[in-house]
């Protein structure tokens, strides 16, 4: 089944107000920023955002007023520091109050993995003694064999996971490589998956290296061709990190007015991802294209 559609269609078809949405699952890379901008343009409301860390994406969506709740281990700006919109929402309820389900990176990974495996929880030894582990989504659990005490992490089952990948076919079978974060777990935990990808490839390309098909088409609802869809975060082999974009965002979002100007310039004032790239400028986009000859060698699947 051909699931190819526009980014605008993918967001409007799959995401409704009030849903929970997993994003930023590659950690600092493969963050589907373009999809996040479209969520903002479509004025989705009351979303629960799920992400281990999000670099600045959660901050953007929070600042735009789309989020009611955050399920995360860390919300900030990895290179530059604090997330100003997150702070304003948590400290002053601007633009709206925000609930947080606090995790560590490991526990949010386990929470997604639990859902991916069809389980209501998974056990762990991490985070014991942390104040956030006293929240309701953690419970003490005694091992029935050794009697040692562990921590049970409640499953997190997103309504939708938005994932950026290197290449996919029109059915949503996707090849990805480089660091994976919790991408595979999120793809299997979520009820629906929206893929944005750098390249659409023939099904034959997928079949030629099945060990890279970490997301299978039967999990995927929509596939969108969005080159540089992870900008400013990197996509190995396709896009460098645009460090300046993060530093500029950090400066400009320091106060609410500055953020609103930023939002107008980069999101609300551009029609779509194409126009966004135009605004970035040809020269800047060119500079973000990887170069070199670091290609993987071939392996044989011969019979």
């Amino acid at each position: 089944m051909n699931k190819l559609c526009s980014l605008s269609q993918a967001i409007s078809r799959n995401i409704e107000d009030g849903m929970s949405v997993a994003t930023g699952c590659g950690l600092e890379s493969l963050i589907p920023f373009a999809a996040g901008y479209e969520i903002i343009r479509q004025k989705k409301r009351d979303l629960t955002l799920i992400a281990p860390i999000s670099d600045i994406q959660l901050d953007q969506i929070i600042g735009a007023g789309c989020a009611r709740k955050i399920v995360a281990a860390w919300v900030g700006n990895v290179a530059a520091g604090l997330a100003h919109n997150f702070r304003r929402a948590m400290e002053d309820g601007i633009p709206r109050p925000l609930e947080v389900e606090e995790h560590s990176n490991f526990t949010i990974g386990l929470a997604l993995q639990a859902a991916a495996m069809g389980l209501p929880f998974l056990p762990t030894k991490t985070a014991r003694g942390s104040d956030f582990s006293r929240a309701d989504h953690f419970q003490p659990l005694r091992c029935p064999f050794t009697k040692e005490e562990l921590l049970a992490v409640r499953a997190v089952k997103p309504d939708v996971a938005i994932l950026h990948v290197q290449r996919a076919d029109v059915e949503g079978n996707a090849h990805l490589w480089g660091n994976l974060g919790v991408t595979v777990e999120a793809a299997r935990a979520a009820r629906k998956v929206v893929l944005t990808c750098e390249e659409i490839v023939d099904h034959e390309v997928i079949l030629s290296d099945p060990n890279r098909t970490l997301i299978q088409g039967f999990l995927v609802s929509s596939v969108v061709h969005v080159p540089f869809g992870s900008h400013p975060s990197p996509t190995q082999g396709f896009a460098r990190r645009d460090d300046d974009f993060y530093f500029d965002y950090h400066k400009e979002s320091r106060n609410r007015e500055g953020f609103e100007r930023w939002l107008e310039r980069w999101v609300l004032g551009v029609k779509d991802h194409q126009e966004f790239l135009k605004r970035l400028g040809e020269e800047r986009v060119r500079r973000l294209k990887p170069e070199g000859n670091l290609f993987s060698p071939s392996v044989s699947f011969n019979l």
Partner: protein
Amino acid sequence: MVAAAAREIRDGERVFVGMRLPLLGFAVAKELHAPNAVGLFENGVIRDWPALQSIFTMSDPPNVARSLYCGGLLDVMGLMQSGRVELGFIGGAEVDRFGNLNTHWVEEKGKRVRLPGSGGAADIATLAGRCIIIMNHEKRRFVPRVHFVTSPGYGEGGNWRDQSGLTGGGPSRVITSMGIFTFDPATKEMLLSSYHPGVTVEQIQRETGWPLRLSDAVGETPAPTADEIAAVRKYDPKGVWTS
């Protein structure tokens, strides 16, 4: 600080590196005395040599390309939970005298300031064989009791970690911009073990929110060697992290 961090990495160890100073310390240690150390990153990357270019995040392409392994977060965290990560570096907005760290929220002028949260820090603090805490030494950061325990050190001291069932060893050192601390083996209180060249114990006391306890062997931190300085310059030629 980078040299001090590098000295903590032993050859052959698996190290949860994190970013910034520890990342540089890892590169320096690999260059000098720990050629077989392996660096682990919570994004799923495992490296046996430094990143190809300087980076801002662990997921930047130069940290991914030519790595030893690229997988998922649970892969790497699972290795740590199973006791295979000997050392981890962490930091925070606040630390207290039992080495507990806070990166959730602090109070400034009577108002709560929200911070980013745990990330992988609580995992490293609870699971790594031992932890090194790296901090800028300021009075508002060195507090008698953290507002919120994000990454537990020795809790309320003594055998609190055992009682709480934590499997990692806890903090072994605190490396600050002014000196280096160890922990009292029994009470688990922080002990000043050395002050950096040009810094006095009195200055450190002024920037510490509780009465300092000194290690019996307290003295000056050995200055970076020529080799260490050269290695730092090699991996941070522009002085982005070490100016």
